[in-house]
């Protein structure tokens, strides 16, 4: 193997030493380790001994970096020479809710420059909450001849021009997955940039975009990419167009329709129904914008093996939902709008015995008042954490006292992610969580009465976590400075709001890092 030859030439003294100790030649060890996919296992493996550390680092092809500032691209490239696939996450999760300043950071470009030099054979890049410019996309498109898969989720900073660069230049592209990004949609011509000779696409998701695209180009593209298994359209695609595309893609596993509300004739409807039938491979269905109840029956034959149904853009009534669900016996994940109401939820209960995840989205995302009570709900959340012992992610808000957090600290032993808003009574609440949840990795808090005592009670804890976010709490600059002083391997970043008291730390983001304080912070972000 090429990699092990290189390794031997670099590490020859080690191999000589270990040859007597280890019964595995390096090649065998690396071969065995290359079968390990779990990063957790790989991390443990790398701690066994120096040989195993080296074998692991040479055999690793995928690296996952949950916080782009926890490490630098140079360090990554130095440790892992053979990476083909990178997953990077950037901004704190609360940026999805506009709590993070626009220019906060998490720009991919510096990473791409290093990758271009060190990983010329890079194949996959998956980004979440990163800033990426058209210039970066253009670099990506030309610097990696084997590039295959690009996935952008909740990113921003780019336009459809960047997508055009990818389409034009990535000859081996198999995946283009554009989801929920802040993208500057300048029109749909980018899709026409895939050359006529290009046939390798397996995953195409452009549901994010709003402009009309060149349908002929899309139809030809789908027609010639015989391996396409995921196709998620945007709402500019009509039902008639959907039917024409589906005729050429019988093997789709995941379908995101376009707009589901075109006026169809009876014959068109029947054609659509026919095209959707017998799709035993289809396990995910989404899109369905403005779905008209009368057309839903066309979907029934496609639902036999569905495990994930996303109706969060279709304002269905309970009866329509019930009829649809009767055809989805294998559903594990379901997203609906609250237009389905209680009867709809009952229908879900009746029809979906295998359901593992249910999300109900408000039809009016700007908040309509519904019910209210003035009683604290500590016992309710307490009951949840006591009985759902495997709970890994939890969000809480509302009329909750420290008692809720006592329960969480006492019972939620598998909790990894906790999101808290407008809850708690004092520092004690946060202290309970920090002291009691051994697997806690991400803690995000907004508008809670937790102050410096709570912040500092987690001193020992934060190095074992990915990150902590606290905004609009009672933490002060002095508290943050103390934290930064005591824990040099943490980056303590404070974002100041205009016009706020100088002593208050309005937004605090704390994370472990071996790359030291970052150098690309905007002026509003202070690293202490």
């Amino acid at each position, binding site marked *: 193997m090429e990699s092990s030859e290189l390794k031997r030439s670099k590490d020859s003294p080690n191999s000589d030493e270990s040859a007597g100790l280890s019964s595995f030649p390096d090649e065998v060890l690396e071969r065995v380790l290359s079968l390990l*996919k779990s990063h957790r296992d790989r991390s443990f493996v790398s701690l066994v001994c120096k040989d195993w550390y080296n074998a692991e680092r040479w055999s690793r092809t995928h690296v996952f970096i949950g916080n782009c500032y926890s490490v630098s691209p140079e360090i990554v490239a130095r440790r892992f020479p053979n990476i083909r696939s990178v997953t990077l996450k950037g901004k704190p999760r609360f940026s*999805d809710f506009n709590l993070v300043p626009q220019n906060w950071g998490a720009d991919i470009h510096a990473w791409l420059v290093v990758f271009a030099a060190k990983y010329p054979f890079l194949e996959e890049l998956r980004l979440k909450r990163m800033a990426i410019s058209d210039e970066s996309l253009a670099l990506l498109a030309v610097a990696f001849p084997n590039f295959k898969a690009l996935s952008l989720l909740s990113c921003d900073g780019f336009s459809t021009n960047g997508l055009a660069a990818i389409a034009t230049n990535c000859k081996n592209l198999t995946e283009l997955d554009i989801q929920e990004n802040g993208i500057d949609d300048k029109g749909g011509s980018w899709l026409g940039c895939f050359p006529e000779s290009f046939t390798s696409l397996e995953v195409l998701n452009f549901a994010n975009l709003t402009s009309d695209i060149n349908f002929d180009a899309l139809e030809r593209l789908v027609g010639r990419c015989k391996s396409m298994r995921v196709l998620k359209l945007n709402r500019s695609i009509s039902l008639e167009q959907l039917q024409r595309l589906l005729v050429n893609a019988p093997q789709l596993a995941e379908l995101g329709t376009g707009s589901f509300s075109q006026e169809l004739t009876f014959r068109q409807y029947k054609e659509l129904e026919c095209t959707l039938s017998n799709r035993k491979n289809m396990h995910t269905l989404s899109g369905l914008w403005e779905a008209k109840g009368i057309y839903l029956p066309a979907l029934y034959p496609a639902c036999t093996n569905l495990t994930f149904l996303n109706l*969060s853009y279709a304002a269905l009534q309970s009866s329509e939902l019930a009829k649809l669900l009767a055809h989805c016996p294998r559903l594990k994940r379901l997203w609906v709008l609250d237009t389905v109401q209680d009867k709809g939820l009952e229908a879900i209960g009746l029809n979906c015995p295998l359901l593992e995840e249910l999300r109900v989205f*408000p039809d009016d995302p700007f908040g309509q008042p519904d019910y209210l009570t003035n009683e604290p709900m500590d016992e309710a959340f307490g009951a949840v954490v006591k009985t759902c012992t495997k709970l*890994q992610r939890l969000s809480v808000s509302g009329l909750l006292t420290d008692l809720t957090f006592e329960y969480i600290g006492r019972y939620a032993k598998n909790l*990894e992610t906790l999101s808290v*808003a407008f809850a708690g*009574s004092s520092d004690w609440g946060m202290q309970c969580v920090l002291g009691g949840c051994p697997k806690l990795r991400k803690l995000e808090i907004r508008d809670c009465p937790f102050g410096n005592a709570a912040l500092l009670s987690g001193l020992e804890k934060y*190095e074992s976590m990915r990150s902590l976010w606290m905004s609009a709490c009672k933490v002060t600059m002095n508290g943050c400075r103390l934290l930064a002083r005591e824990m040099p391997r943490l980056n303590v970043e404070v974002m100041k709001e205009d016009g706020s008291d100088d002593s208050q730390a309005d937004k605090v983001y704390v994370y472990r890092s071996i790359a030291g304080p970052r150098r690309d912070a905007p002026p509003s972000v202070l690293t202490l």
Partner: protein
Amino acid sequence: MSKPIEHDYIGLSEPQLPSMEKSSDTNNKKNALHLKATELRLGLPGSESPEWDDHDHNVLSLKTFVSGAKRGFSDALDGGGKWVFSGGSGGGSEGLFSPRSSGNNNGGKGLSGSDSGLGGPVLKDGATQKPVVVQEKKPQAASGAGHGNGNIAPASKAQVVGWPPIRSFRKNTMASHPPKKDDDAEAKLGSGCLYVKVRMDGAPYLRKVDLKIYGSYKELSSALEKMFSCFTIGQCGSHGAPSRDGLSESRLIDLLHGSEYVLTYEDKDGDWMLVGDVPWEMFTDSCKRLRIMKSSEAIGLAPRAMEKCKNCT
């Protein structure tokens, strides 16, 4: 297919820093909470909440915040119990509740009618985000929540960045293209849609349109053209050539604006009026139902009707 398990790498080799990430099947764990979350009824910390003391529990000396509840809404709740809970939850969030303060000082229990209304604060991506918490300043902070920032405007809706916890991507998507309901409910004013029945003379069944999604008479008229095109051609649900082939928009425009049909509506007073006389907003406020009449029947309106129709743009 199961999700790949991913663990964080930051290159640390010290034993006290094992990577601990395990994101497999996290979704599986969300559902139980989620269902519960949609059942729970919560009020935000407010009038009867336990004390949130400014001064306890802070070991390092803290300057307490300027007056006004940090927790935003608590003061506004005093005696009002305005905290409300929306049964749904937002995209990407797990079971968070949507508090909403009416900010009214009237102290009435329950929801204040003035709170219902179209939309709430529209939070757009890209806009500079300032914390726009607006809260009531109460002389006697009975809730005990004396911490906070900013002062209160007696606005009918408190605006908080990032609340309700619906990802701004979703908010923007829904704001620009609200999912349309295809229901038989009465026209619901103030809920963001305004459905009225549309009858076309000679058509076998009626249709409904949501007037709120159109901004002008022209948009309405072209939507109606598309909707009723099949009837005009005389083939709907044919088994031969699809009925819309060969239909040109201009033919339909001729039909509606030319000689064959006239668009009329019934207003609040029960009178049948010609569409197009009044400003669009006034029309949507007063229109109860629409009728596409054969112009031979619109005899009483005919001469003006023809003229007005031509001005319907």
